[in-house]
Each structure stands twice: as C-alpha cells, then as structure tokens.
C-alpha cells in the first residue's frame, strides 16, 4: 500500500504543477469546486439538529424564580407562537417599546415569564453555559422558520430608524485596521482566504448572511447564533466587544433582515 500511496501523492503533485502552468483561474475553479462538494457532503446531518433538540427542551422546561417555561413567550406572533416567528424578526414590540431581535426578545421572556435576572446572561462569554442556553433556544426558534420567507419590512418608524442606524453602523470604520463591516461585505464576489463574502447591501448577499444563521460551525464544533456571528465579526474587525443584544447589534440585524426581505430562511445552517 505504501508504494501505491507514493504514486498517488506524486500524481497529485503533477496535477498541481500542471494546473499552475495552466493558469491561476483554473486552479481557483478546481479548489472552489472541491469545496462546493465538501459543503454539499456536510449538509445532510447538520449537527445543528442536536442544538434544536436541546433548545426545545429548554423552551419547555420550567425555570427561574417563577418556575415557568418559555411556552407563553411572545416572539411577535402572539404568546406561544414559535412557528414562523423568526422570519419576522427583528420587529418593534409595544410592551418593551423597543425594536428587538430574537435573542433580545428571549431575554425579555426570561425576565418577564421566568423572573430571571438576565444580566449574567448578557455578560457571559459565548461558549459558556449561560450563552449556550440562549444559542440553543435561538437555534430551536430559528429552525421553526425554516423555508419561510423573510418578512421584515421595517415599516414602523422605530424599525425604520433601527434600519438606518444599522446601515450607518455597517459603514463605520474604526480601530487599528480601519475596518468596517463594509470592508469585507460591500464588494461583490470577493472572499477572505477561501470564504465567500456576502455583499450585504443588496438582497442576495444580505439573504446569504441573514437566512443561514444560527449555524453550526464545523471548525470549532460550535453552534453560533446571529449575535455570536456579529460578535466575532467585530472581534476580527479589531473593534471592542459588542454588548449582547444591544441596540447596535439589533440595528445591524435589522439592516440585514430588511435588505433580505422576501428571501427564504435556511435556518439552521452549517458553515466551515
């Protein structure tokens, strides 16, 4: 077998050299094709399903000082309606007089229904138990909007303002690297390393981003919510850390969701 192995490696090397001479474009195409096949192979059996199960269990489990479950949580479609709710977030909620994304709204329900002081959840690092709960809940709720059209028109004045704030934030440059969201996400058809970068100011790119989170990240074997996704974008932008569920994060989500309006939810996703 060893000899056969060597032949295979040598053959692969020859192919690589031939491609090098044939031109850069060809090599890129082959790499992109290989990666497309890889991504397809991952789609069946997304470990995100494990987190949907865990999230549903948390949703139904009585917890907090009031020993209540989240079953009566109003995610915008009335108390207890989970199906289709994520496709219509973020939105304005009269009871809090705020525009809220899913995770911000989950905090509200934990406070009002379960009597939980959620400050510790806000403060907790991603990847620690309190944030894991929120990510699992978000994965469960988002999964219940799979295949539904995004319905975020940003028609309420406060929703419109949130959209504009999000758009302004998207272009806000700062930090030692002069990065903004736009640095990577405002040019079409580009990538970082091998990662395709969605062009977020237009519908198709906004949809590619917005409709595929929460997603299972195979690199770390972690489930990431949209809040975690945004948090890590800012980390790589060399910004300070976003405050979980803050208006800033909701504004960016509103900018993406409303730009993606009408696209189909593909939650939960799976990413490299």
């Amino acid at each position, binding site marked *: *077998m*060893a000899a*056969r*192995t060597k032949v*295979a*490696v040598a053959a*692969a090397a020859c192919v690589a050299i031939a491609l090098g001479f044939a031109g850069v474009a060809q090599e890129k195409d082959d*790499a992109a094709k*290989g*990666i497309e*096949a*890889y*991504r*397809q*192979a*991952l789609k069946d059996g997304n470990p995100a399903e494990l987190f949907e199960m865990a999230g549903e269990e948390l949703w139904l489990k009585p917890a907090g000082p009031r020993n209540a479950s989240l079953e009566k949580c109003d995610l915008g479609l009335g108390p207890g309606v989970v199906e289709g709710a994520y496709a219509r977030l973020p939105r304005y909620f009269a009871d809090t007089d705020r525009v809220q994304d899913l995770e911000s709204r989950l905090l509200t329900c934990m406070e009002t229904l379960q009597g939980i002081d959620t400050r510790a959840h806000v403060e907790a690092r991603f990847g620690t138990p309190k944030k894991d709960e929120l990510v699992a809940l978000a994965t469960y709720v988002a999964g219940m909007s799979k295949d539904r059209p995004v319905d975020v028109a940003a028609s309420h004045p406060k929703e419109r303002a949130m959209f504009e704030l999000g758009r302004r934030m998207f272009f806000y440059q700062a930090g030692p690297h002069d990065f903004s969201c736009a640095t990577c996400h405002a040019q079409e058809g580009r990538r*970082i*390393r*091998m*990662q395709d970068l969605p062009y977020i100011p237009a519908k198709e790119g906004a949809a590619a981003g917005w409709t595929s989170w929460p997603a299972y990240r*195979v*690199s*770390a*074997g972690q489930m990431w919510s949209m809040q975690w996704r945004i948090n890590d974008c800012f980390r*790589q932008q060399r910004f300070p850390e976003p405050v979980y569920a803050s208006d800033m994060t909701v504004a960016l989500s509103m900018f993406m969701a409303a730009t993606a309006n009408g696209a189909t939810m593909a939650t939960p996703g799976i990413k*490299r």
Partner: protein
Amino acid sequence: MIDIERRRALKAGGILAAFAAAGLLPAGRARAAWNKAAFEGKTVQEALASIGASTTAASDDVQIIASDIAENGAVVPVQVVSRVPGTTQIVLFVEKNPNVLAGIFDIGPDVAADVTTRIKMMQTSNVAAVVKADGRFLASVKEIKVTLGGCGG
C-alpha cells in the same frame, strides 16, 4: 433508555459491568473490546498489523467517496463502499494523523458494506479504506487536501 439518576448510579459502580449484570446490554455488545493497540498505531503498517492484516492488495471494489478538498480538517465527510463479496469489516485510516486509525466498522449479514462518517484530519493526507473479506484485506487510497481556515490563521 435509562433516566439520569440511574445512569449516574450505574456509572459510579462501573457502568459496563453494571449494564451487563442488569442484563441491559445484549451479550454481543460487551464483546467487542476496543482494540487499543490498533488505535494507538502511529503508522498505517502498525495499525494494520494490530488488526491482523499483514498484507493488503489494492482493489477498485473498495471505494472512498469524499470531496478532493476539505475546507476544514475538523470535519471531513467520508463514505466507504465495498463491493467485495463477503465483506466483514471496513477499516478507515488517515495516514498523517498522530494516530492513523479512525474507525473499525463490523459489517454483519444484516448491514450493507456502506458506511458514512466524518473524520478529523490534521493536514492534507491520504485516507485509506481497508476491507476484510474472507480473510483477505483489500485497500483503496484517496488524497484529501485540507485548506487553511479563514481569518485568524
């Protein structure tokens, strides 16, 4: 299924013994002692020797289905299909992993010689599938390239 408390209690007392004593594991299940020597093999040759395969022959009837490039080595989908009659075992190796043996799949009369899993790969490497059939060992090899991650690398 057993509830959590019961599982805790069982674990404290040595779970396998407890299961067997309670008759919760079918007799067949306790049998396959994990092949420590094979899983600790640092080379394909060492690991092969530990499963009793001194020689292997290349065969087109053993097929590895996987993409040529894995975007991330942490999760690499691999399917192995054997068309060799009488296949009783499929063994999967990653040549450049610290421990080369990834898994041993026993193919009884009730399952097809067709298994899919996801493996970790430290780096670009050959992946080998060895099939045991009628005491013979037949092999197939495929190179899978592992690209670097995105930012932060």
